[in-house]
């Protein structure tokens, strides 16, 4: 019998997807369904904001930035 599940379809790069998968491993509180292709998955609607903040933080830490100094 087919079922319908409420959720948010997330479209992103494979790298971002693997980060989300990693977060989910901790407590399994993000993902509703992993869609098994490179850049899609369905997550809980309530977790979007939380996820965005967490991704931004981690990306800021991990990605090296070019020199932002105001040298003239």
């Amino acid at each position, binding site marked *: 019998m087919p079922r319908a*599940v409420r959720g948010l379809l*997330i*479209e992103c790069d494979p790298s971002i997807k693997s980060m989300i998968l990693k977060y989910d491993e901790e407590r399994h509180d993000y993902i509703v369904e992993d*869609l098994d292709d490179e850049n899609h998955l369905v997550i809980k609607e309530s977790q979007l904001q939380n996820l965005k903040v967490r991704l931004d933080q981690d*990306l800021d830490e991990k990605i090296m930035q070019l020199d*932002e100094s105001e040298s003239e």
Partner: protein
Amino acid sequence: MAASTSRPLEYLEGLPGTTFYKLYQQPSTALAIFRRMLPDLAKCFVMALLYLKDPLPTADLELWVQSESKKQRDNAISILARLHILSKTRTGDNVLAYMVTNPFASSLRQALVGSEDSQSFGVFSQIPGESQVSIADLDDYARQQWEGVMGYMVGTSAFSGQRELNLSKGVKQLLQAGHLVEIRDRRVDITKDGFGFVLQDVNTQVWHILILYVESAEAIGMDSVEVLSFLFLLSSLELGQSYEKKHLTSNQLRTLADLADFGIVYQDTPEATRFYPTRLATTLTSDSSALNNPITGSLTGPAGEAGGSGSGFIIVETNYRLYAYTSSPLQISLISLFTNLKYRFPNLVTGKITRQSVRRAIEIGITAEQIISYLHSHAHPQLRKHNAGHATSNTGGIPPSVLPPTVTDQIRLWQLERDRLRATAGFLFKDFTSLAEYQAPCQYAAEIGVLVWKSDKKRMFFVTRHEQVAAFLRSRNQQ
């Protein structure tokens, strides 16, 4: 033109048919809508049909347009229908036909050929011996008031210690009601919508404000039709002329006083017997202003050069450095929203567009496109000239860009950096037992346009709305 017309057009389309009937009684309204809201093809249709005695069969009208332009024709006809200008009837021998609806047709004819004793286009004030206010003074007044409103929104008075213009309570309430600003602890905070608003061109801004005004007018018991048709009347007046107030109704007088606060009209004193429309009013429904926007130039350019050749004052270099030749506190605080400003001189500020500064802007709700379009519309003539010269040497079918492409691309990339994922709310359908059971509803979902993603291998699909698909599944199960 499309950008600045879309909002008033959207608003008008939302009005009920009876409102249109009342609006179109005024020749000035019919003419303003004809001039400003219609695409060129629609104007052709109206002009061709206007003086026909009988409705024109639809097949005949369709012949006028070549088959490859069918899309434009359908678009024109759909806009005309939505504005209740064109209606479908049947001719004597029962053929489907188009005609221009009546209050609109008669009003437009009246507007075109003139008529005896109509006050629809305002009445000139002719008081001998009284001096007229000059156009330059009107522009000054409009600029001062409009920048005052903008300044109030972005809080320039705190920025530069400049004296604050005395804005009336009505103006402040309107900005608040339109969610352009929020008042927290007696402090004015601009909202996301507000940021979008201040970066738009002046014509779009004026329309935005006016529509807010019409919406709020209804709430306080003024007739929106009366206010709207008065706005259209204002837009058809002549700059530099004064007009009699004694023909206006009490609601219109009230509107007039409110609009004076925005700099859209000018009167010597609130009790004066006449008023002047400013450039903000007279360019509302004219086509030409949308393109080169004289008001933006005269409003935002350095005060000494108002009306001069160049309207822009911003130079952006390929190394992300930005030079803005302005002393206007409003412009400076706008630029500082997305730039790290470094030095300020009497007529020049310089700074650098950085990843940080752009991200800061994006966090408070400004989009990359808004930043780029702001920079573009205020680009210094030198920048335009320079890049136009370059374009001839390296054309590749790409239209010449005024701004350095490296900078615009980078601003977009900085925005993308923040949107690493795209989320669509909806429902995942899964656990189908056979491929056939999966395919039918999936195809149905695609047909009704709710399908976002599907996987044949996993027999799953994702839709934005589930009601219809669920009903479809149920009806199949019952069979």
